[in-house]
């Protein structure tokens, strides 16, 4: 999948992007509304890409069963409606008209159109945004099954949504197109150094932003992430560059209740609100900050975290 660069007012707005889409992998791109539209507009080929846009609506007066039957017939598939309804977990709503479903459920049913796509690549804009927890799980299951045969690209503005079902996540913003490191690697061994306990009470985190030096008290920090080799300190929805490595920061901040929840994430445990379990092997932490923030949690770190919290 290739995207051509787009310039806005002489400045590079969208860099040239080449995605190596192999089967059995779904890719997420976290970006803003305007860039999402620019990306979608570059995929006009209807035989290659099935595009699900956020504004998609449904035939409101059909019942769920009639809709599924229609989609089977119009795409000339040889499946049976009642078996598919079981697979989609829609058995109970069989006879309900789409307009009478709850809004999350209605969106879920609308999203099922991607299941019937014959194109080799599926592109979804904000698929999880309007869904409740339960419908998210169903959709994740269906997308995981689909990704065995097709390439899936999810465009979203929310890291949490991308974390649900993407194997590789990129962030596209004014600083370019960067891959986020969300891989779960247990074999990653960090050297543990003796730490200088005398300095702990004086710790300030030294960051830079627009050539200004800003010092943060550790309790102010929500979490720290490593993106493409540089360290970003997140404070109240904003991020600041830091020159230290994540391992150094981990040692400095250990006594302030910070926890290395992932190879490239260090989180302030005081701000953690919720541990989200997506599947047996994938977890995230939701933070209790002004803006809704979610950081990934490695499977290997879960036990450590539970021990730390006396769970």
């Amino acid at each position: 999948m290739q995207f051509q660069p787009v310039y806005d007012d002489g400045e590079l707005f969208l860099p040239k992007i080449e995605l190596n889409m192999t089967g059995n992998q779904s890719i997420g791109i976290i970006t803003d509304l305007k860039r999402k539209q620019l990306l979608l507009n570059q995929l006009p080929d209807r035989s290659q890409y099935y595009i699900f846009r956020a504004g998609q609506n449904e035939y409101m007066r059909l019942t769920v069963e009639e809709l599924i039957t229609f989609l089977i017939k119009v795409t000339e598939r040889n499946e049976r409606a009642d078996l598919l309804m079981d697979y989609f977990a829609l058995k109970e709503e069989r006879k309900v008209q789409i307009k009478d479903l709850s809004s999350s459920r209605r969106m879920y049913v609308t999203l099922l159109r991607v299941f019937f796509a014959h194109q080799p690549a599926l592109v979804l804009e904000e698929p999880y945004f309007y869904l409740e927890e339960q419908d998210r799980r169903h959709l994740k299951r269906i997308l995981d099954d689909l990704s065995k045969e097709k390439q899936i690209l999810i465009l979203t503005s929310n890291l949490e949504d991308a974390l649900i079902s993407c194997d590789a996540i990129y962030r596209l913003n004014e600083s370019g197109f960067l891959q986020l490191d969300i891989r779960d690697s247990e074999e990653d061994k960090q050297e543990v150094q003796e730490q200088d306990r005398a300095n702990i009470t004086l710790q300030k985190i030294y960051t830079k932003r627009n050539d200004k030096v800003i010092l943060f008290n550790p309790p102010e920090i929500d979490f720290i992430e490593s993106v493409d080799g540089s360290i970003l300190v997140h404070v109240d929805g904003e991020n600041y560059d830091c020159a230290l490595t994540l391992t150094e920061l981990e040692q400095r901040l250990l006594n302030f209740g910070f926890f290395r929840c992932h190879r490239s994430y260090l989180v302030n445990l005081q701000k953690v609100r919720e541990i989200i379990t997506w599947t047996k092997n994938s977890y995230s932490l939701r933070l209790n900050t002004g803006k809704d923030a979610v950081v990934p949690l490695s499977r290997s770190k879960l036990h450590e975290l539970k021990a730390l919290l006396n769970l």
Partner: protein
Amino acid sequence: MSISMKRAQAIFVKDYKEFSRNYGISIILIFPIILAVLFRSAGASLPGAFGLVLNGSFVTLTCLAQACLIAEEKERNTLRSLMMTPATTMDVLIGKSALVFVMSATVLAISTYLFGYELANIWAFVAVMFLSIILYIAAGTICGLFSKTLLEASLSIMPVAIVFTGAPGGALLVKDYPIFKVLDYMPSSQLVHLLNIRHIGYTTGDLLKPLLVILAWTVVLTIVAVGLYQRRLKDE
């Protein structure tokens, strides 16, 4: 372009269910019947009454229903989604048009019966109804393509109503405004001519001329509608 009856049929069934449950729109099915009953008593004194009933019905039923079916799909972005399925342009158009055709034919047959119109030549009448329904479906398709929502669709048939239904009336003013002579070649005027042919003393030529004019209109409008549909969907 491949046409699959299975897909067209799926679209027909889907549209039938949607249309029949949308009471705000499906109420237009009774308009031709009401018109027929209203003008029935005036039948004897007003020679063109049945032509008026039919021309009015074509716009308010055939044209409006087709425009609404297309505009509603556009409003909900389901048409774009449909374009990404194997269903081709012709599948979609045939499925929708077939539904409108069946509805129009049934309702107009009922209203013809209620009006008590005496047919001069049944085959000519069937042929002209057949062509006219297709013609107004094509006009409705064009209206639907130019509107983005249901509301716009119901307004967009106004020009059709004025130009087509109004043409026989306008043709009466031909003495004052010679330019209105062209209105005589509108399909609606030709339909009125055909309906005015009495039982006795007509020639095949009398029947054939209106039929040929309407056929020409039907062919041209259908080609325009299909062409426009394909062009419009490219930039959707």
